[in-house]
C-alpha cells in the first residue's frame, strides 16, 4: 500500500435543478496524505457534491479527476470502480451476516461454484489486519457496536482499494470515545496516501481530525484553509457570509409571570443539570451543535423519554414529566423533530390529524363527529394559510411546511401554555419558514410561550427573545439576540 499519494480534483463541477443551482462551478483539489474537511450549512451544496462523487447524481457540467485522469460514472457501482468509495451516514451492513460476508457481499470468492468460506475468511482477516482493526471477520455484524460497524463499513469501502474515501457525517451516531477510534483509522489511511474527504456538521471536531477545511456556501466553494487558521469566527464568516445586522432589535423581553420553570433537569450524559425559566409569551431559543442534547432535552420535558433527575414547575405545580399525556394536560406540548413519523399519522386524514391531540383523554370530548372535526380543521387551515386540497384526504399528501403547521394546529386545539418546537423549519421552503416564524410570534403575542430548537443560528437570532446555548448537555451560556453577533454565538456553541 506504500504507493505514491493519490490526488483528487473537481473542475468547475456544476449541478442545476429546475429553478435552482445546487452547485456552482466547484473546483476542489485534494492530495492524499491529508484529511480534508468539507463544511457548509444545510442547503450549501454538500449533499449534492456527495451525491455526484458517489455516483448517485449526475453533474450538469464539469469534470472529476482521480489521479489526474478524468472519470465519469452513472451509478454508485461505477464510482467505486473509478476509485471513489463513499461511507454514508446510514450504515448499510446486514446485521444477521458475518463481518466477512458483509465486506465481500455480492463478490464472495467461489470454488467449484460454491462459496469458498475459508477463502473469504482469510481475505477479511488480511484486510482487517492491514487496516489495524481488531475485529473478528467471523462475528455477526449486528453484535458489533456502532463504532465497530462504522469501521467495518470503512473496511468494506477500502476493500475496493479506492483512491478517494469520502465520509458523510460518519460520527453523527457515535459517542466521543468511539469517534477517537474512527479518527485513528482515518489518520492511518491518510498516511497510506488515500485522499480523505470528511463531510461534517460538527464543527468542533474538525480540529481533531482534519488538516484542511473547505467551505461551501450557496453552492459555491468559498475557500480552503489550513486547519490552524480555522477559528470559529473565521469558519462562521465563511459559512454565513457577511450578514446584515439584525434589522429590528425588538428584544422587548416579555416579563410576564413565569409559565414553566425547569430545575436541574438531567438524563445521563445526554443533558445535565439544565435549569431555566420561561415567561408568558416568551420565545426561548436553544442553540447547540448536533449531539449537544437539544432533542433529548425537549423529549424529556415532554415526558416522551424518561429523565434521571430534576423537575418542572408548570402552572404552580412541581411535576416529574412521565408521559406525553400528562404533560399535554399541563399544557406543555412538543412538535417533534421527525414530524412525518412522530408528529402526524400519515395514513389518516388531515381532519383527523388536526384533531388528534384533542381526542384523548376521551373525557375531554366523548363524542365527536366528522362535521365537527372538519370545522375545527378548517379554522386552522384558514388561520395558518395551509395548502390543503382536501381535509378528508390523507395528510401524507401535504408539503413539509403544511405538515408542520398541522402539527402546531393539533397542539393549539388542546390550549397549550408552552410549545416545544424541535427543528420546526427543517426541510421546508423559505416562505413556509417565514410563516412558521409568524405563527410562533402570534402565539407569543397571545401569551403562549415557545422553546425553539434549531440548527440554523440565523433563525434563532431572528425569532427568539433569548437564546440558551447547550454544549455537551449543559447550558454553556445565554445570549440576547440583539446584543450578540452570529460569530460569537457560534463560538459559544463550538468551544
Amino acid at each position, binding site marked *: 500500500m506504500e504507493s505514491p499519494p493519490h490526488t483528487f480534483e473537481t473542475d468547475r463541477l456544476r449541478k442545476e435543478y429546475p429553478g435552482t443551482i445546487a452547485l456552482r462551478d466547484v473546483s476542489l483539489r485534494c492530495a492524499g496524505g491529508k484529511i480534508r474537511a468539507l463544511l457548509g450549512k444545510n442547503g450549501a451544496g454538500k449533499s449534492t457534491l456527495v451525491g455526484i462523487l458517489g455516483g448517485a447524481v449526475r453533474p450538469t457540467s464539469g469534470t472529476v479527476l482521480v489521479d489526474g485522469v478524468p472519470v465519469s460514472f452513472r451509478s454508485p457501482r461505477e464510482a467505486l470502480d473509478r476509485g471513489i468509495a463513499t461511507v454514508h451516514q446510514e450504515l448499510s451492513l446486514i446485521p444477521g451476516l458475518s463481518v466477512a460476508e458483509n465486506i465481500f457481499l455480492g463478490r464472495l470468492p467461489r470454488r467449484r461454484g460454491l462459496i469458498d468460506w475459508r477463502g473469504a475468511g482469510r481475505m477479511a482477516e488480511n484486510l482487517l489486519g492491514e487496516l489495524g482493526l481488531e475485529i473478528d471477520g467471523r462475528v455477526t455484524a449486528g453484535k458489533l457496536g456502532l463504532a465497530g460497524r462504522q469501521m467495518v463499513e470503512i473496511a468494506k469501502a477500502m476493500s475496493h482499494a479506492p483512491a478517494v474515501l469520502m465520509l458523510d457525517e460518519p460520527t453523527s451516531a457515535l459517542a466521543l470515545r468511539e469517534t477517537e477510534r474512527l479518527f485513528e483509522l482515518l489518520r492511518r489511511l491518510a498516511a497510506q496516501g488515500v485522499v480523505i474527504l470528511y463531510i461534517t456538521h460538527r464543527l468542533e471536531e474538525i480540529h481533531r481530525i482534519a488538516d484542511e477545511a473547505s467551505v461551501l456556501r450557496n453552492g459555491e466553494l468559498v475557500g480552503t484553509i489550513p486547519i490552524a487558521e480555522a477559528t470559529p469566527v473565521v469558519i462562521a464568516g465563511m459559512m454565513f457570509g457577511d450578514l446584515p445586522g439584525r434589522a429590528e432589535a425588538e428584544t422587548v423581553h416579555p416579563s410576564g409571570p413565569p409559565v414553566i420553570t425547569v430545575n436541574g433537569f438531567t438524563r445521563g450524559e445526554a443533558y445535565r443539570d439544565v435549569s431555566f425559566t420561561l415567561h408568558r409569551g416568551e420565545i426561548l431559543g436553544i442553540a447547540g451543535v448536533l449531539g449537544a442534547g437539544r432533542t433529548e432535552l425537549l423529549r424529556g420535558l415532554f415526558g416522551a423519554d424518561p429523565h434521571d433527575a430534576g423537575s418542572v414547575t408548570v402552572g404552580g405545580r412541581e411535576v416529574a414529566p412521565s408521559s406525553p399525556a400528562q404533560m399535554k394536560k399541563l399544557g406543555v406540548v412538543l412538535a417533534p423533530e421527525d414530524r412525518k413519523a412522530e408528529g402526524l399519522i400519515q*395514513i389518516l386524514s388531515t381532519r383527523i390529524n388536526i384533531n388528534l391531540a384533542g381526542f384523548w383523554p376521551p373525557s375531554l370530548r366523548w363524542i*365527536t363527529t366528522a362535521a365537527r372535526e372538519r370545522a375545527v380543521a378548517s379554522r386552522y387551515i384558514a388561520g395558518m394559510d395551509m395548502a390543503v386540497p382536501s381535509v378528508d384526504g390523507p395528510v401524507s399528501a401535504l408539503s413539509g411546511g403544511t405538515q408542520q403547521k398541522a402539527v402546531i394546529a393539533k397542539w393549539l386545539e388542546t390550549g397549550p401554555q408552552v410549545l416545544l418546537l424541535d427543528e420546526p423549519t427543517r426541510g421546508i421552503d423559505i416562505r413556509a419558514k417565514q410563516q412558521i416564524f409568524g405563527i410562533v410570534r402570534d402565539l407569543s403575542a397571545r401569551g403562549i410561550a415557545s422553546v425553539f430548537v434549531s440548527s440554523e443560528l440565523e433563525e434563532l437570532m431572528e425569532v427568539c427573545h433569548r437564546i440558551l446555548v447547550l454544549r455537551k448537555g449543559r447550558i454553556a451560556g445565554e445570549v440576547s439576540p440583539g446584543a450578540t453577533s452570529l460569530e460569537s454565538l457560534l463560538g459559544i456553541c463550538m468551544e
Partner: protein
Amino acid sequence: MKRIRSLLSHAVLEIILAGLCIFLAAAAPNFLSAGNLLNVLRNVSMQGLIALGMTLVIIAGEIDLSVGSMVAFSGCLTAYVAGALGASGPGPGAVIAVAAAILVALLAGFASGAAAGALRNRFGVPSFISTLALLTALSGAAELITNGFPLTPFPPWYNFIGGGYLFGIPFPALLFVLAFAATHLLMNYTSFGRAVYAVGGNAEAARLSGINVSAVRVTVLALTSTLAAASGVMQSSEIMSGTATTAKGWELDVIAAVIIGGTSLAGGVGRVWGTMVGVVFLGVIMNGMTLLNVSEYWQHVVRGGLILLAVLINRMERREK
C-alpha cells in the same frame, strides 16, 4: 356519472354481495324466504359478534388468535359454574346460578384479553404470540374443566339465549345487530374510536400526541375477548352443553370476515360496516351452497377462493385511489 362511478368503487363488496343474492334468488327458490334469511343471520351472529371486536383489534394494529378457544372455554366454564351452583335445580336458584355462571365467563374473557394487552404494553410481547399461546392454553383448559365429556347442567329455558326468538327474530341475531350498531357508533362518533385508528396508524405518533396507547390496546383486546366469551355462552346455550371441542378454527373465519370487509392487517385502516358486509357475505355463500346441495368439501374450497378474490378486489380498489 362520476357519482355513480365513485359509488361503484366505494361499494364493490356490497355490489358483489347484491349480485350473489340475486343469483341465489334465481337459482335456489328458498333463498329469499324470510325464514332462510333470518337463518343466515342467526348462523353468522356468533362469529359476527367476535368479528366486530376483531375489527377494532386489527385496526389498532394487533391480532387475537385465541377467540375460537375462548368460545369453547367460555361455554365450558359457564356449564361448569352453573352446574356447581345448582342450575339444574328448581326455581329462582337456577336463574341465579346461570346468571352467575355467565358473569364469570364474561369476566374470564375480559381478563384474558386484558392480560394479552398488558403483556404487549409492559413486555412488548406481540399479541400474535400471546394470543397464540392462549389459543392452546384455553383449549386445554376447556378440556380440563369438562374432563373430555360435554357438561349438561342447563335448565331447558337456557336454550333461549342461543336458540330462541324475540319478535320473530333469532335472539343471537338481535344481539349481533345491536352490538354492530354499538361498535359502529363507537368507531365513528367517539374520541375513543379515533384513538384506535391513531394507535394502529402510528403508535409512536399517537403516544406523542398524548394518546394513552396502552389503554387503547388493553381495551380493544379485552373487548374482543369478552365478545368471544359472550359468543361462547350463546354457543353453549344453542347446543345446551359445555363442549371443549366446539368453535375450532373460528379465529380464522373471523379474521377472514374482517379482512374481506376491507380492514388492513397493517393497522389504521378499516370499517365496522365493512366487517358486517364481510360477515354476511361469508354467511350467504355458505347458505347458498348448502341450498344448492354443493358438497361440504367443495364449500371449503370455494370459500377459500372467494376470500382471496375479495381481498384482491379490495387491493385493486385501494391502488386506484
